[in-house]
Each structure stands twice: as C-alpha cells, then as structure tokens.
C-alpha cells in the first residue's frame, strides 16, 4: 500500500486577488531587451510571477487592512505609534522604538550615530544596503560568518553562524575601541536565507559582554530564523516561534528592521534600542531624514498595519506554511537536478549559477544571465545575487564573491502551490538547454548599489 502523505495547507484563504497578465515569448524578449537584461528594470506588468523580492510584496491580512482604516494621521502622538511601540516591546522585547519609512532608513541613522571613521564592523556576511551605510559612515565591514556559508553544497543546518575565532582575531588586531558593534543578521540573506543557531548567539553574546561590544541585530527575517531553530536545534522543538524570537532578541542590544519582510507590510521599518542615550540621539536624527519620531516618515495606517503584522508573523502556523512553501519549491527543483544552495533557506531558493552555467566565467555575470533566461522562458522575475550585487572595492576592483546566485524570493502569502510548480518547471526547462546560453557584458554602471540600475547586452 502506498504511504499516505500528510500535507499541510495555508492557515488562511484568499479575500482579494490581483489579476496577472500572461505574456508571449516575443513580448518577453522585447521587454528584456528594453530593460538592458536587468530584471530590476522590467515593468511589473510584464512579469507573470514576481520573485524579485520578498520585501514589501506580502499580502496583508483582512485584519491589517482593517488596521489601515484605523490610521491616525496626526503629525505628532498618533495612536498607531503607541500601538506599534507596545507591540515592539511585547513581541520583540526591545525597549525603545524609532519608526522609519524602511529598513534602510534605520540603517542610515544607526550607522551615523555609532560608526566613526576607521571603525570595523564585523558581521555574518554583508548585505548590500547595510554595508553601504557602514561604508558611507566611514566604517569597514568584515565578514566573520563561518566558512561553510560560502560553500553552496555544504548542508550544515546553521550556515548563518558566526565564527568566533574570526571575531576574536579582529578584536585582537584592531582593539575593542575600533569596533562599535557586531552586526548580526538572522536568516542571512546573501548566504541563501541561512539561519543562525541559538547556541552560536549565546556564545557570541557572552563573548561580546566580556569585551563590552554591542550586538546590533538585522532582524528583518527573525521569525523565519526562529522557525529553523524550532525545527533543527536541540531543546527548542517544544518552544513557540514567538518565545524563540524573544530569546534571540534578548542576546542583542538593538535592532534595525525592515518590516517589509517578516512583518507582512508593504512599507515600513524601525530602529529598536535598549540604550536610552543612543535612542535619544536617534530620535533627534530621525526628524531630519525620516519624519517626527512618532511617525518616522510613515502614514499612521502603515504603523497600524505593521503592529498587526508583527503579531501575525510570529504565529507558528503562519511560519510553518511560509517556510513550508519555500521548501516545497526547493524540493521540486532538486527533483529536476537544478543546482541550488542547501539546505533550503527561509525566504527563497538560491540557484547556484556557477554550477548551472559552468561555461560562463564570473566576469560575464552568470547569475545575471541566468535571471534573464528564466524571465525569457516563463515571465518569472528573479534577482541576481552575485558579482553585480557585490559591487566594487574602494580601489575600484570588482568584488568576486564565492557565491554566484540567482534568488527566487517568495513573497509571503501571495502565490499558490500551482505557481510554485510553474516556477520549478521553468528552472528545469532552462537547465535542460543551459549549454546554449551565452554571458553578458555591462554597458552602464551606476555609482552606488549598481545591481539596481546597471544595463547589459548579450555577448
């Protein structure tokens, strides 16, 4: 008798839908040409399934939409601000809140307050905007993630972990005074959405306490990280994601948050702090860049949606369905032998372009090429996370990252299982004809964060 499979399903049903346009191959070819082979420059109406990012693309719940109607748009002292402040305190455990219009607004303010020229900021792998803000404030990012993270094949469960020896070497070399904080991300995006373990965090925290170095937490996908701890780390199987999130945060001294990811909103972010002095400085600075500290550049309704979204994001059933869908897609791709980063991460599938297109050298942008080919095949929009995203060093040379990936990021609560099937099948079809694919040449390169606006042509 065949073994009966027990499926899970989403803990929600659809209440409102958005119509999609189906394009022809000829239309896609033209759209791609017009976009200079950069998926960022495609018009979204030419895209069938949009996996460019999981940022700001979530479907809000009916409760969040109801919250949108309760927006209090007062310039100062909005009710929604106090609600959000309360939720951040209760769910995340941080004391002081400064809302910002996005995560990068929080990074900008934090970097300007804490980083002096010549400082070193160790972290578990760079992220594009985070590193840029650190550099613009005069600091230098140093990668202290474990070596396993740079190996797409390695199946270690917690590839987001920090190598404490690497950190210790930096501390010994530069001295504590040069290190304003250690920057840790939960669910390390550039490593493929890989989690950090609680054990590693505890060790990091006790090391940093001893050395008197702050830990600042990029918490944009903290709930997804917590889910992996619950599933894979000893001693956490019976704890709720909510409790695990709170425990993670308790080992850190402050956080930047892009609420456009885990917190299920289309816009918003914040800086959360436990130190009053830094909070006060941040509150004065937020007025210049973002808006008064009780709205931080957000409409009142968006603070309300965020407060509700945060509470929904740490629900066990929600997270299981969320990560479950990503794993479903990953397993489908593995069945078709598409080379992907393993283990499967929390917010997307990262296809290994170096293995996919071994005949294209990194200087001809294999990941950028692959993203373009996937779009051409099916109208699925993905994103390059390789040499184009890595940018250039201060001396003008390209960073050549070990990982040359194409990210298939899954928006939260938006696509169905049938959409996942289409995506996996498209990746499989391109994989079949991979030998015929040619690389790209960059013909326009912007100064900052070049991956957003660069243009290419076919070789």
């Amino acid at each position, binding site marked *: 008798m065949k073994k009966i499979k027990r499926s899970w399903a989403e803990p929600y049903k659809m209440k409102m839908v958005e119509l999609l346009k189906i394009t022809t191959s000829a239309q896609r070819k033209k759209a791609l040409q017009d976009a200079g082979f950069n998926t960022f420059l495609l018009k979204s*109406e030419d895209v069938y399934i949009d996996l460019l990012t999981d*940022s700001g693309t979530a479907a809000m719940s009916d409760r969040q939409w109801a919250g949108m109607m309760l927006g209090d748009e*007062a*310039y100062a002292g909005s009710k929604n601000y106090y609600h959000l402040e309360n939720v951040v305190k209760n769910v995340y455990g941080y004391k002081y809140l400064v809302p910002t219009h996005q995560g990068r607004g929080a990074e900008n303010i934090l970097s300007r307050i804490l980083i002096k020229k010549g400082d070193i900021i160790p972290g578990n792998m760079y992220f594009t*905007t985070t590193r840029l803000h650190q550099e613009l404030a005069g600091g230098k990012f140093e990668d202290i993630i474990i070596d396993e993270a740079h190996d797409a094949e390695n199946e270690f469960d917690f590839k987001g972990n920090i190598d404490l020896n690497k950190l210790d070497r930096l501390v010994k070399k530069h001295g504590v005074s040069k290190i304003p904080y250690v920057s840790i991300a939960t669910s390390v995006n550039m490593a493929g959405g890989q989690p950090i373990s609680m054990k590693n965090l505890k060790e990091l925290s006790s090391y940093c306490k001893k050395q008197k170095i702050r830990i600042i937490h990029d918490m944009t996908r903290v709930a997804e990280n917590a889910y992996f701890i619950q599933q894979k780390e000893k001693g956490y199987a019976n704890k709720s994601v909510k409790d695990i999130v709170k425990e993670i945060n308790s080992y850190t001294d402050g956080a930047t948050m892009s609420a456009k990811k885990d917190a299920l909103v289309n816009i918003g972010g914040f800086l959360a702090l436990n130190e009053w002095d830094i909070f006060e400085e941040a509150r004065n600075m937020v007025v210049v860049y973002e*808006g008064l500290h009780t709205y931080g550049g957000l409409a009142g309704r*968006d603070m309300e949606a965020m407060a509700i979204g945060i509470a929904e994001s740490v629900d066990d059933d929600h997270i299981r369905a969320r990560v479950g869908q990503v794993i479903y897609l990953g397993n489908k791709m593995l069945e078709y032998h598409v080379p992907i980063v393993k283990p499967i991460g929390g917010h997307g599938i990262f296809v290994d372009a170096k293995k996919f297109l071994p005949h294209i050298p990194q200087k001809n942008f294999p990941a950028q090429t692959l993203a373009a080919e996937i779009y051409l095949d099916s109208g699925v929009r993905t994103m390059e996370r390789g040499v184009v995203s890595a940018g250039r060093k201060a001396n003008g040379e390209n960073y050549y990252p070990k990982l040359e990936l194409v990210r298939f990021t899954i928006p939260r609560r938006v696509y169905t299982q049938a959409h996942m099937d289409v995506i996996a099948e498209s990746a499989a079809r391109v994989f079949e004809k991979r030998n015929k694919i040619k690389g790209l040449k960059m013909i326009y390169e912007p100064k*900052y964060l070049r991956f957003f606006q660069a243009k290419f042509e076919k070789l």
Partner: protein
Amino acid sequence: MNTIIEPFRIKSVEPIYFNTKEERKYILEKAFYNLFHIHSKDVLIDLLTDSGTSAMSSNQWAGIMQGDESYAGSPSFFKFEKTVQEITGMPLVIPTHQGRAAEKILFSILGGKGKYFVSNTLFDTTRANIEFTGAQGIDLLCAEGKLPSVPAAFKGNMDIEAFKNFIAEKGAANIPLCIITVTNNSGGGQPVSIQNIKKVKEICIENNIPFFIDACRFAENCWFIKQREKGYADKSVKEIAWELFSYADGCTMSAKKDAFANIGGFLAMNDETLAMQCRNLLIITEGFPTYGGLAGRDLEAIAIGLQEVLDENYLQYRIRSIEYLTNKLIEEGVPVMQPAGGHAVYLDAKEMLPNIAASQYPAQALAGALYTEGGIRSVEIGSLMFGKYDEHKKLIPAQMELVRLAIPRRVYTQSHIDYVAEVIIEVYKNRKQIKGLQIIEEAPALRHFTAKLKPLF
C-alpha cells in the same frame, strides 16, 4: 448665494474624544508645554499641521486598493510619473517618502560649506537640511511680507532688489540654487505672483543660478494668482500651474499637502545629469527609483490627489474656509496675519502678548493657552522654531512670533471652525493671564519638535 458648500460629502468618520479643561492643564504640563509631545487622542481639534492630515477621497482609497507593490517597475509608479509630468511639464520624476527626503537629496548634491541657498522664506525642515550640509539658507522676503497686519496681494514674493544685491555681494558661483516656496508657509501661507517668479527667473538666468520651486501648496498659490493677478482671471488653475512650473528648472514637493496624501513626496526636474545624481542618492536612503520608499498604493493616491486638487470648486471652498475663520477673528479684534493665507490662520503673538519677551516664547505660550482652553493643537512659528543663539548663548529671536492654525484638507466642518474661533476669542479676551515660558531641555537642531519647557512665574 453667499454660502460656499464643500464639493464633497463625508464617507468615513473618525471619532473625537472629549476631555475637560482641568485634564488638559495636566496633559500640557506632562507634555512639558510642547504640543508635539501630546498624544493625538488628547486633542479635540488638531491644527498642528495640514501635512499628511487630509481626508482622502473615495477615489484615492480605491487607488490604495489598486496599489501594485512590485519592488521594481510598478504600474502605480508609471501612473504617478505621468501625472507629475502632465502638471509640471518636467520630464524627470523621482518619488521620495516625504518632501524632506527630496530636499535632503537635492541639497546633499548642491550644498556644502560656503554656499548660500536663496529663498523667499525657507521652512524649518528645509532650512535644517540646508544647514546640515554646511551651507546657509537665506530668506529674502519682500518688505510687506514681514508686516503681519498689513494686507497685500502677494506677501510671499521675493525681494528682487535684495536678491540682486545678495548675488553682487556673495557671487553667483556661491549660490547653487534659488528656491521659492509657494505658498510661503513660514510667512503666513501667502502667495507668490507669476510676475515675481518671472523676475526671479530672469535674474537666475542672467547669473546662471538654477531655480526650483518648493511646490507643496502650488494649487493654493495658483488659485490666489487666478483671483488676484492681472491677466489670470480667465485661465484655469491647471494652466496657471503649468505656467508657474514652466519658469522653474525643477521642484520639490511634499505630497502630504496639496496632493491630499497621508505620506509621500517627489523631486521633478529637467536636467538629466542632476536627476542621475539624485537617483544614486535616492537608492541609499529612500528606495529603488520606481518606488522611492513609498508603497505602490501611496503612489496611486498621490497621482489621484494631484488631479483632484486642480478642481476649482474645491480650491474656492478651501481658500474661502480659511478666510471665514480669519474674518471671524478680525471682527473681534484678534491680531492675525492679513490677508488670510491658503492653508492656515496665523495669530500674531507679538502684538497679542506685548508683555512677553521673545526670549519667553510668546507664541508657544499662546499655543499652550489655546490647547488648555479648547483642546486645539496649533504650532508655534516664532523664536522656538527659528530662534538661534549668538556666541554668548543669547537668543537671536525670529522675525515674527506667530501661532499657526493649519487647517487639514477636507477634515473639519464649519461647526468645528466656529468652535475654534470661539476658543481663540476667549483666549484673546483673557490674554493678560498668559505667562511666558523657559526652555529646560533642547536638541541642537529642529529643537521645537522635542524641546521641554516650563512656565515662568
């Protein structure tokens, strides 16, 4: 018929919570006599700002539901871009999460130590953004603009002679930008005439200085032009706006004012190189160029709002309702800025409270009294907002001591406004009881937002 009715009706309401005078006394004390610290639920009529506080139309709410939240290339962006292009005639449109972010980007590129940004009057965040780069902001307002009680048609105009002299003194090379605020917010919401803008533009061309418009309240300004300037009575507001923008090389806009949006702003311009530089900075602090730190739905709401504000029935209602409140106050002898401006009523605290020195912040004291008396939240535009210290830590007072009662768009009814007038008149009658204030804590920049004060006895 004399009564002008609103060209809309109410579709959704928000409750107001009532409190007593005793409770408000206590709340104000707890808020350190700074109305920015008061929770909005403790305010009966919130006239703190007209920024981001509008009631959106049902069409805008429908747009909110249609927002396309794609990170890149959202149709909501293209709709927004097209609308801005059609109104301003400027081809390059860059969204930002608010007006101050647009300013921040522009001034970071053009500013720097030793540079001067010339204006009719710069608003608080605008000035702060300029000074943050090390440059100086220079206000060259026409003489009549500085006299609150003397009515004139275009009190927001720039002083042309002073502008010429300033260029001669500092050199055009040190002036990276001339930016005119329409209407002139800090100076009483007073309009700028097309004639004045033309002259400013001529001088800018002669001296090779780029000319921008701070366009937050462009439609209100254009309505005043239609009413007051020779040759414009028969032109539509849309045509006047088109002409206004045609003289400028670019504009900054907070869509939270005349575009009826609760969040959002933009930069628009003609110069491709400058736009490229702006987009490079935009990505760092705001977001990708097709969303600029806004949700797709907000781009939709702005696009729709920009069309709605050009409706002349609306503008007539809007300006007349400000006039209505102003005239009620004038009848009772309350000293107000004259004539009525476009978005707010400005009380002249210097004249009303002659016994309170600038160093005791008379306008802030008056704003506190309005809150205690009737739960009305207004904002000080005087020495707390614009005062500076000299090298001996002595206060250099602002030119005027005003209390601004900004009227949110499409939010309050005539009976709310009647109530506001009654409260102001009551406070005016008992003005001798108002006491000055003293600062006990302040931030180095934009102190009025967070300063703590206490009354002098």
